[in-house]
């Protein structure tokens, strides 16, 4: 009877605990799928089929071509052609349109002769994100048209300020959410589930029996880590497959380093879970602490939903100690921006340091006796 046999017996036991609790299993494996789909499709800031009104007094070849382009894009649906600019106000108030495009008269002629034609873009800014995205799309279309027109006519035209969006030219919502959801789910499964699994042994009294036996407490703890590590890897694969094939978010950078940084983050989250389990006594407390102390910062401070740059300085400082922030940064760089490893060395170093610190602290805090 060797130590490895003891260890593998415990790992087997942990897997049994997980597989026999069907409901939790379903949540564990189903959660990433649901979250990815929710964040990817339902809760999206992406603009699709926005209702648009166009006021076109000139009705010439230039405006027709622009309208045609707007029509062709999947973002806009031109629903109204009001005869008076005043009608647009009413359409906005009734909520029938989100964007209005107003050309001035003799658009084509002005463009050709003075090189200075103006277009007004009005957006419903009750949802500022949505509005800026719509304006961005429309400006892009105008800019593209202008480019084309200039080449055809070889006349210098007034340049409409060009808006260029790096990495995410179409401002796809999913691009921002995928790293966030990865951080959230991995943190949740690793930290919450490990802490609950360890605390459950305390609560049901099995820890008492194990402590009174010659088994090394470290074995008990690490045997819990392995099943949750493998579950997290399954989830990681699910998320990556879903985001590539369902959401159409490509892995532009190195897949290898993306996986490595994910493993590093999983390690941080697992050690956080162990740390929590050494502090609390009940499963409910473990869940609340992981929920409040881990979930909320991941959601709010990691830059997943709200940009950290716009936060007060105190919160910005706080966000530095949220592991998910660094993970999300690294994933964004590796997966979406497709940057090389040397650009994420800082994130790697911080995550590694956090893992080391957390493991040391939780090993120090682990008790060989009750209370």
């Amino acid at each position, binding site marked *: 009877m060797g130590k490895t046999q003891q260890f593998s017996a415990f790992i087997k036991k942990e897997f*049994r*605990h997980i597989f026999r609790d069907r409901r939790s299993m379903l949540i564990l494996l189903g959660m990433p799928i649901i979250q990815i789909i929710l964040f990817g499709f339902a809760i999206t800031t992406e603009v699709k089929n926005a209702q648009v009104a166009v006021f076109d007094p000139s009705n010439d070849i230039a405006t027709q071509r622009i309208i045609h382009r707007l029509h062709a894009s999947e973002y806009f649906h031109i629903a109204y052609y009001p005869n008076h600019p005043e009608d647009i106000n009413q359409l906005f108030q009734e909520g029938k349109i989100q964007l209005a495009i107003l050309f001035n008269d003799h658009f084509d002629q002005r463009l050709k002769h003075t090189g200075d034609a103006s277009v007004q873009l009005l957006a419903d800014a009750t949802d500022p994100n949505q509005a800026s995205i719509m304006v961005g799309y429309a400006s892009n279309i105008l800019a593209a048209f202008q480019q084309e027109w200039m080449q055809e006519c070889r006349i210098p035209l007034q340049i409409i300020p060009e808006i260029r969006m790096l990495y995410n030219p179409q401002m796809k919502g999913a691009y921002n959410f995928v790293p966030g959801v990865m951080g959230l789910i991995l943190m949740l499964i690793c930290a919450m589930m490990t802490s609950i699994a360890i605390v459950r042994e305390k609560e*049901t*009294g099995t820890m*008492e029996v194990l402590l009174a*036996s*010659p088994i090394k407490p470290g074995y008990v703890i690490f045997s819990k880590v392995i099943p949750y590590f493998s579950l997290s890897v399954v989830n990681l694969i699910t998320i990556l497959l879903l985001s590539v094939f369902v959401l159409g978010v490509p892995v532009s950078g190195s897949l290898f380093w993306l996986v490595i940084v994910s493993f590093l983050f999983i390690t941080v989250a697992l050690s956080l879970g162990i740390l929590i389990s050494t502090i609390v006594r009940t499963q409910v407390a473990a869940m609340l602490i992981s929920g409040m102390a881990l979930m909320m910062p991941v959601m709010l401070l990691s830059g997943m939903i709200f940009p950290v740059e716009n936060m007060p300085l105190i919160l910005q400082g706080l966000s530095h100690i949220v592991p998910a922030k660094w993970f999300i940064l690294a994933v964004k760089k590796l997966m979406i921006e497709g940057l090389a490893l040397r650009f994420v060395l800082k994130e790697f170093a911080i995550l590694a340091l956090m893992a080391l610190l957390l493991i040391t602290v939780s090993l120090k805090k682990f008790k060989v*006796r*009750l209370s």
Partner: protein
Amino acid sequence: MIQVRQISKNYKNVQALKELSFEVQAGEIFGIIGPDGAGKTSLFRILATLLLADSGSARVANLDVVQDYKKIRSRIGYMPGRFSLYQDLSVIENLELFATVFNTSVKENYDLIKDIYCQIEPFKDRKAGKLSGGMKQKLALSCALIHKPTVLFLDEPTTGVDPVSRKEFWDMLRKLKQQGITILVSTPYMDEASLCDRIALIQNGQFLHIDSPQNMVKQFPKPLYAMETIENYKWLNTLKNDARIASVYICGEKLHLTFKADPALHLPDLVPVAPTIEDCFIHLMQYN
């Protein structure tokens, strides 16, 4: 086999154990008898190396419970008061897990647990959580015995177990004693006390008395009488205030009485009875 000297343990405001001292000989069944909250579990946890005493020292199997806790842990079997096995694992899975924990196998020590385990073996694929109270205890005992411990700590093993299973359980302890295993067992049931070789009565973290159950009963100082009435409580209240009566209390369905001078009262159906451990306990409680 077990030596305890001046052990004290305090929780925030409660003194759970007050300078307890006792010794248990090898191969003895030693019972710790007392009500809930008397400090039994704290004492067991200290001896099982799970808690540190505030003062005093204790040795188990000639090893110090603080310094040599690792060695002790491989030599003792410990069964906590609450059922503490994995409810979602089957009977055989639990047993095999604990065999592995102690670096042994079910096969190796099957002889030791055979008598107990054969009763639950028909249900070996059932989840431990779905067993009856008596069967749970048999499984827990099997798991505590799987590594052939020299000392067995059983903290209230029969609480919440039906009378038939309780009797069976004590029969098993007798057999284990024959195998030379020292057993420290606690119980709130006074009737189980007489099944131990020696007992310690514990109340509020203090031992009232340590002796064999037979001696303890013999030392009961006064003749004891029992009275059977329909209205026990009414009689209890009347007799409590009677100056001629030393003590009166309800024991089972009867009133038990002792008198200051021999039966000076004419009470209906008064019969002399032999004192039990419960009578001793109540007497000692009042005396202290």
